[in-house]
């Protein structure tokens, strides 16, 4: 019964959970392993290491939110559960970055899509980065294991209308589509995955691996910001961290020193490179924070003749990979097609506008449908990715130049999305671009999209998938960690999150992070126990 609240029970049973806001004096803590981050990577690592008998401390900058806090309300959820209160953007402001910041990380707020790393991607890594041990056959058991751990199954219920439009449009045009596997157990099909699952159905890190670690005596400290890994000669000696007050933002002045034999960075593809850069971790080839990938996303909305109610129902259940690998793995930019949920705040943030135009658009929300295209970046020489850097205050930023190669893919994606929407019966279609209008037929939309200037800010761009920045590879001159997430130069440092991907994935990344972290943690547990 999914209403049994795992977190309340655990807290009552004596889990070691500390809210950084309650700390009143500086202190030093010690463990076998300190893990920074509690998302897909950190949670998996914590559970596996704790179950093997190692003493584990989990450090989370965000706060612990769970069922009691998940009230299906955008305005309370976005500020508390997302990085920078949902205002995170790329350095030039042109790309909105959706990323979790809470216990469970992005798995607490994602839309539950659970894809294996495509074989094409794994084979490309093998050939291009010398990652032979990550070939599809070798990875298959790890995907199997994580699919079971997180209850991942293709969505068995009917897709909601929003997703069904993608399915119908693809069907009519002869484009392939498939059902999305979701990590849910007893899902109520409500549609509020993005603001914290209200029914405990979502099997993200918050309700699986983090409780699994805490059941095995791991210590979770949330509201604690990892400032710096401090080296002693060639090893990390300790992590320096700052406690935050109950607002989750303001440092209280209390510092915590965390000593351990081994450190695992799992703070996301923006957070981990930021932490390593702040710490001055040895980087002889200047690789930390390079090759940062985001699956750049553009969107197209449509007004349908029948009600869509895009705010209700499992947000993502249908996808199309028809255009994802069709140009070859390193050909013209490919894109995966999915659907976003549209609640009022999200919709009003995605659709750029003001005044009469905006309210007329918003008034049609119940009839509105949207498709998003996720571009596969990092596979072509003209898609080298972005860079993670540090602001004056030490916080990380993403600088992501959109290259002509990607603009070409984004324009083709606009075409495809509009074509599919008209094929599914759309009355009118509106690409998310400052110079676009509503178009009432495919021919008009087609010629308009051909003319749209593909420029920063004018094309509305998003990312919900941050990857790379501490890429893995056999050659230390072009990577930060090896194929097991072990740092090339610091023997007691591992990276277990999406930052180790040497390219983007070409699919929503949570299962890729779970599987690689499980594989690398099993190895790490063996090493640390001997």
């Amino acid at each position, binding site marked *: 019964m999914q*209403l049994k*609240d795992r977190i309340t029970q655990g807290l009552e049973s004596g889990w070691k959970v500390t809210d950084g806001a309650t700390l009143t004096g500086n202190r030093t803590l010690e463990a076998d392993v300190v893990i920074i981050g509690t998302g897909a990577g950190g949670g998996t690592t914590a559970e596996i290491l704790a179950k093997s008998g190692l003493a584990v401390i989990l450090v989370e900058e965000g706060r612990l939110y769970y*069922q*009691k*806090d*998940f*009230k*299906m*309300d*955008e*305005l309370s959820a*976005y*500020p*508390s559960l997302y990085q*920078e*209160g949902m*205002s*995170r*953007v790329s*350095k*030039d*402001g*042109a790309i909105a970055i959706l990323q979790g910041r809470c216990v469970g990380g992005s798995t607490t707020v994602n839309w539950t899509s659970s894809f294996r790393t495509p074989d094409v991607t794994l084979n490309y890594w093998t050939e291009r980065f010398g990652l032979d041990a990550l070939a599809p056959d070798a990875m298959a058991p790890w995907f199997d294991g994580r699919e079971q751990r997180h209850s991942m199954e293709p969505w068995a219920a009917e897709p909601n209308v929003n997703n069904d439009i993608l399915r119908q449009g693809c069907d009519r045009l002869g484009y392939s589509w498939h059902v999305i596997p979701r990590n849910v157990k007893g899902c*109520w099909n*409500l549609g*509020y995955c993005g603001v914290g699952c*209200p*029914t405990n159905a979502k099997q993200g890190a918050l309700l699986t691996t983090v409780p699994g670690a805490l059941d095995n005596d791991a210590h979770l400290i949330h509201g604690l910001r990892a400032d710096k890994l401090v080296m002693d000669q060639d090893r990390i000696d300790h992590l320096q961290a700052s406690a935050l007050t109950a*607002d*989750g*933002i303001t440092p209280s002045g209390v510092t915590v020193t965390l000593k351990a034999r081994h450190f695992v960075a799992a703070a996301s593809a923006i957070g981990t490179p930021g932490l390593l850069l702040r710490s001055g971790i040895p980087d002889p080839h200047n690789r930390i924070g390079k090759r940062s990938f985001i699956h750049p996303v553009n969107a197209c909305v449509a007004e349908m003749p029948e009600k869509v109610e895009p*705010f*209700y129902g499992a947000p993502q259940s249908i996808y199309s990979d028809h255009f994802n690998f069709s140009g070859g793995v390193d050909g013209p930019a490919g894109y995966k097609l999915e659907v976003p949920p549209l*609640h*009022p*705040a999200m*919709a*009003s*943030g995605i659709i*750029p*506008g*003001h*005044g*009469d135009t*905006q*309210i007329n658009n*918003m*008034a*049609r*929300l*119940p009839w509105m449908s949207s498709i998003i295209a996720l571009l596969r970046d990092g596979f072509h020489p003209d898609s080298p990715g972005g860079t993670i850097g540090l*602001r004056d*205050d030490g*916080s990380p*930023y993403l600088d992501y130049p959109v290259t002509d190669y990607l603009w070409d893919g984004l324009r083709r994606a606009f075409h495809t999305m509009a074509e599919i929407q008209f094929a599914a019966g759309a009355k009118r279609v509106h690409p998310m671009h*400052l110079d676009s209008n509503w178009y009432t037929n495919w021919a008009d939309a087609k010629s308009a999209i051909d003319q749209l200037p593909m*420029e*920063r*800010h*004018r094309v509305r761009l998003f990312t919900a998938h941050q990857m790379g920045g501490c890429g893995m590879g056999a050659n230390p001159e072009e990577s930060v960690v090896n194929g097991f997430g072990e740092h090339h130069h610091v023997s007691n440092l591992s990276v277990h999150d999406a930052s180790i991907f040497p390219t983007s994935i070409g699919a929503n990344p949570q299962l890729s992070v779970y599987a690689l972290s499980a594989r690398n943690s099993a190895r790490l547990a063996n090493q640390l126990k001997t």
Partner: protein
Amino acid sequence: MNNQSEIRSTSADFAHLNRRSFLKTGLGGALFLGTVSVTAGLSGCSPAAGTRMDGSYEFRFLTLDDIQLFEALLPAIIGPGLPEQPQARRMAIAGTIERIDAGIHNFGPANQKELRRLFDLLNFGVTRVTVARVWSSWPKVTNEEADAFLKRWRTSSIGLFNNGYIALTKISNVAFYGYEDFWHLSGYPGPPQWAVDALPQFQTA
């Protein structure tokens, strides 16, 4: 931060703010970084609690100037979504500005700094006139003038202005349309009642 040196360096940049340098720096997205913080000292006072609505809300980021800016912009951004009845209209605007303030508090220091530069640029008379091309101070700006300003920044070929347009409209739209009292404007009935009735977090003890 050393205020003196910041004011000096920003003043120097400010002196070079003409259309040509603007185009140059604007492409780098760095204009706000250097030019406008000079005004922070002029407008950095927080409004006293109790000046809005029932006074129970204490502003944490927006200054009195910022509040006047949004009082001028919201009628153009939200347009006919705002109630016509004067008291209800005042309440809707004030409540939206409070939610904007609360939202910005959660943006954290880095994005707050960016917004401070944007708001200061719009509030400081010289830059309001030369950069935003808004001739009157915000309390005297008409709805038509506010709309024209928004359209200029939306259609501008300067990416930085587009970015400013997106920032202003996005934080306003989210704070307005995302709020329960205005869900009906987007035909959103709210979370399904049967689920609310069944879930423990909605039951009052």
